[in-house]
């Protein structure tokens, strides 16, 4: 990966919807080169997808998010990976990390209701062999997601002068 790839990643990481023509101009190259590099990054699984940063609180689609810390017993030969795969394959698990510290795994889980998530924890997650403990914490409000502040910012209006030297 060279400097241009890094710059390309920096730009699309902030805004994945920049048009190819604009990207080419921003990177001082041509559209074919950008296409080629993006395909390569996608093929190499550096870029794994393009999603929106959605503030579900502003929709009428109810969404409940929970952070679930999971303690597990690692397996000889497989370590955490096999048991992890049993968890992250569930649709409900949006994001999952292996952690240092007290718990082993952190799952970010989304559901329509608290009950749905509670049921997921009780019937799917806790019952997996090797899971010894779960701690579920529900999200009350999203302030920031993927680098974007989601709450109203009263002061975001720009006070800059129209012309300054």
């Amino acid at each position: 990966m060279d400097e241009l790839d890094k710059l390309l990643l920096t730009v699309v990481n902030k805004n994945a919807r920049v048009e190819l023509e604009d990207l080419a101009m921003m990177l001082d190259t041509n559209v074919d080169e950008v296409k080629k590099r993006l395909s390569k990054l996608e093929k190499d699984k550096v870029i794994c997808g393009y999603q929106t940063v959605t503030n579900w609180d502003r929709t009428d689609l109810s969404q409940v998010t929970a952070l679930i810390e999971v303690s597990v017993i690692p397996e000889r030969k497989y370590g955490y990976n096999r048991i992890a795969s049993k968890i992250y394959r569930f649709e409900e698990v949006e994001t999952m990390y292996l952690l240092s510290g007290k718990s082993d795994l952190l799952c970010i889980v989304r559901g329509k209701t608290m009950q749905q998530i509670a049921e997921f924890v009780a019937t799917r997650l806790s019952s997996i062999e090797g899971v010894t403990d779960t701690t579920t914490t529900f999200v009350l409000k999203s302030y920031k997601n993927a680098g974007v502040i989601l709450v109203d910012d009263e002061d975001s209006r720009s006070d800059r002068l129209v012309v300054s030297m």
Partner: protein
Amino acid sequence: MTKIVAVTDWWCQCNMDYSKIISERASTIKPSGIRRFFDLANQMEGVVSLGVGEPDFTTPWKISDAAIYSIEKGQTFYTANRGLIDLRREICNYYARRFNASYDPETEALVTVGGSEGIDIAIRALIDPGDEMIIMDPGYVAYEPGVILSGGIPVKVHLKEENEFKLTPEMLKAAITPKTKVMLLNYPANPTGGVMTKEDYEKIVPIIKESGIIVITDEIYAELTYEGEPCSLGSFPEIRDQVIVVSGFSKAFAMTGWRLGYVLAPKELSAAMTKIHQYIIMSAPTAPQYGAIEGLRACADEVEQMRLSYLTRRNYVVKKFNDMGLHTFKPQGAFYVFPCIRSTGMTSEEFCEALLNDQKVACVPGTAFGESGEGFIRVSYAYSMEELKIALEKIEEFLKKLNK
């Protein structure tokens, strides 16, 4: 109500002849020739501006947080005249690490109210009536009045686009006279975005050394250099005793409103400037100083992220202007491009005024920065990509109409 009328009456009766009262020096400073244009732009509703000289980013929160915390702790007193010693140490560390120029925080660093104060006190400390000071044209608007206020004579070097607005050894030699005392450089440059690289400086350093002049180098945009490593004129040991570095936090750290800058200079020069500073300012504002310490210690990543944003915008804007048919050289620093509008047959001011009236897009006529700015406009890219796209589409529309 009656009272207000009475006051108004009093004002009407007042017929002081202020032209006899305002000092000759203050009168000599010309108000900007394009004041009328700025008034027009600032009064118009819904203007899409490409006219600002400050970042669009807000200050990194670590800096704001440190400044707020200092206020909460009651750190609301004057600081030492030269500024907080911790800040001076950080500034000197930063200049050593980033620009390979070493200064002593105790005796060679001075914290000022923006780079602007640094420029002012540097000129005041050096210029006597009749002394010549070399400045660049086009150049930032504050330098010439600074010289005039000290009774000095501004001598302009007319920079050329074909040299990317760099100062060449020939130009410098031609400008130096026996009366030359000071030269003021500003690279990366406002308004052109021109940069002097290490190699460029190496060509003029021997001339500076031989002539014995003092160089004030305004390096406020140094961090915003897009190709190669930024270079400070303070990093050349052979002329170290002739260089005053002026910089600050406004541009790279997005802190324009905080008004915080600094001056790095050899001990004797620093002492002379500190003397002026201690009487006219006392000390730079305290909370911004605490913020700036944090900025220098912990915000290198934020600064780099902003630089990368400017870099991609610069590439975009330069390409767009050239595609539109306005020849634009690719500047290596700051956040301005300087497109040439001669192909339209208009003057800079005519072009900017017509563009403002037709598309409500505000750019700054090159002539605001001196006569050598004629034929150019200054376009700032301290705007989001979305804003730049809209503004550039409007400029394209304007040019299409012109060509019809």
